């Protein structure tokens, strides 16, 4: 079995890269999209709405299949790794957009008025006054979404990317020892889950120091579920 360890480690490496790429680019694009989706320009709002609705209401597997097998029909040929990264980024962007938009919308109108009375433009108000606390407020759903994204990197094994799950599928067809293999893999994913949660929380507290009121382990041991309740309790905290 040990001879397959390098394959699995390579897989781990690809999983980590894909997850980090998806999480951070998805976050950056998602925040931009969230700003556009509350813009005063109607076209922006509509485009954002359509984007979010499409990506949230179709499975990532289908998005991946369209990107990888569908696009060549239009003359756009992507390598498996590029198609995989693209699917993860586009998918995560849609979810982050919706989460951050929720944070922005829950901001008190008075904040805008205060900013206006200081002579800030709407863009400045959003950038300096509204956005930082809005993102802070939705911290917990963003981390949950990021962890879920890390888990969904496994889906890209279906187009032949040898990340953790893909590597394990290859090894399993060589060795016929699916049970031990997949169980070990499950443990690796559970550990990754906690590592990502911890790393994102530490990063977050480094960026928004003033709000590190909850202990790290409380944050890390939190279950993943992103519910509307979650957002609501985020507002109370």
């Amino acid at each position: 079995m040990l001879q397959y360890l390098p394959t699995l480690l390579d897989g781990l490496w690809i999983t980590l890269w894909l997850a980090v790429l998806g999480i951070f680019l998805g976050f950056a694009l998602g925040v931009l999209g969230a700003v556009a989706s509350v813009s005063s320009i109607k076209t922006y709002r509509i485009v954002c709405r359509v984007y979010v609705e499409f990506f949230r209401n179709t499975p990532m597997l289908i998005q991946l299949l369209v990107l990888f097998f569908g696009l060549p029909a239009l003359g756009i040929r992507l390598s498996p790794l590029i198609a995989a990264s693209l699917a993860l980024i586009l998918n995560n962007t849609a979810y982050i957009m919706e989460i951050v938009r929720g944070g922005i919308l829950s901001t008190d109108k008075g904040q805008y008025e205060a900013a206006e009375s200081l002579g800030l433009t709407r863009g400045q108000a959003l950038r300096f006054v509204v956005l930082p606390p809005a993102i802070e407020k939705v911290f917990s759903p963003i981390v949950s979404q990021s962890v879920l994204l890390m888990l969904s990197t496994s889906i890209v094994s279906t187009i032949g990317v040898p990340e953790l799950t893909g590597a394990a599928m290859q090894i399993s067809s060589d060795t016929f020892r699916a049970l031990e293999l997949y169980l070990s893999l499950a443990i690796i994913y559970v550990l990754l889950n906690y590592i990502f949660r911890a790393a994102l929380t530490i990063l977050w507290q480094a960026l928004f120091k003033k709000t590190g009121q909850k202990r790290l382990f409380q944050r890390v041991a939190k279950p993943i579920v992103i519910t509307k309740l979650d957002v609501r309790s985020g507002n109370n905290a």
Partner: protein
Amino acid sequence: MRSFGLPELLYVVEALRWTLALSAIGFIGGGLVGALIAVLRFADNRLINGVIIIYTQFFQGIPLLLLMLLCYYGISLIGIQLSPLQAAATALTINASAFLGVIWESALRSIPRTQWESGESLALRPWQTLRYIIAPQAIRLALPSTVGFLVQLVKESSLASVIGFVEITRAGQLVTNITFAPLEVFGVVAVLYFIICSLLSWLSRRLELSLRQAM
């Protein structure tokens, strides 16, 4: 080579019932186990709590695809051979129960303590308090998230294609293999998912709005 015509389209659309059936099985099975999980957490038994925490953290912490592979290829090695449908249904049920259990537990917890106390002061048993006072309020609270999770479940059922169960994603792959028209075929599949899921999303949003007005 065949073109992507009406028979092929019908084949994909017909497979829709398997996507719906699989989602329904996952939702009902996951709902039953999830409800049990949510309620058992209130028993305040250390052992039960420990088991439930490990169960939810484990099954929320692994990808559903891996769970499908475990249910289909993994356990066949210890002599339990499940059909693709059985394996997919088992995986979805386990996955859904881990998420629904937490959603419902947090809904139950968000009902103020005083409501429990008022039940007690009316000489109701804890079970009766839960049944007649707490649950009706918690269900209203949890309904939008539950319908929201159902959208996720419908999407996740697409992963059953990996173990060879013919729902719409797998049907799409099969049709693609004979027509070589992946863009059209997967486009159609995407539209089918979009229709089901946006209907459910719309329902969940409406429920949330009406809930907000009611409170």
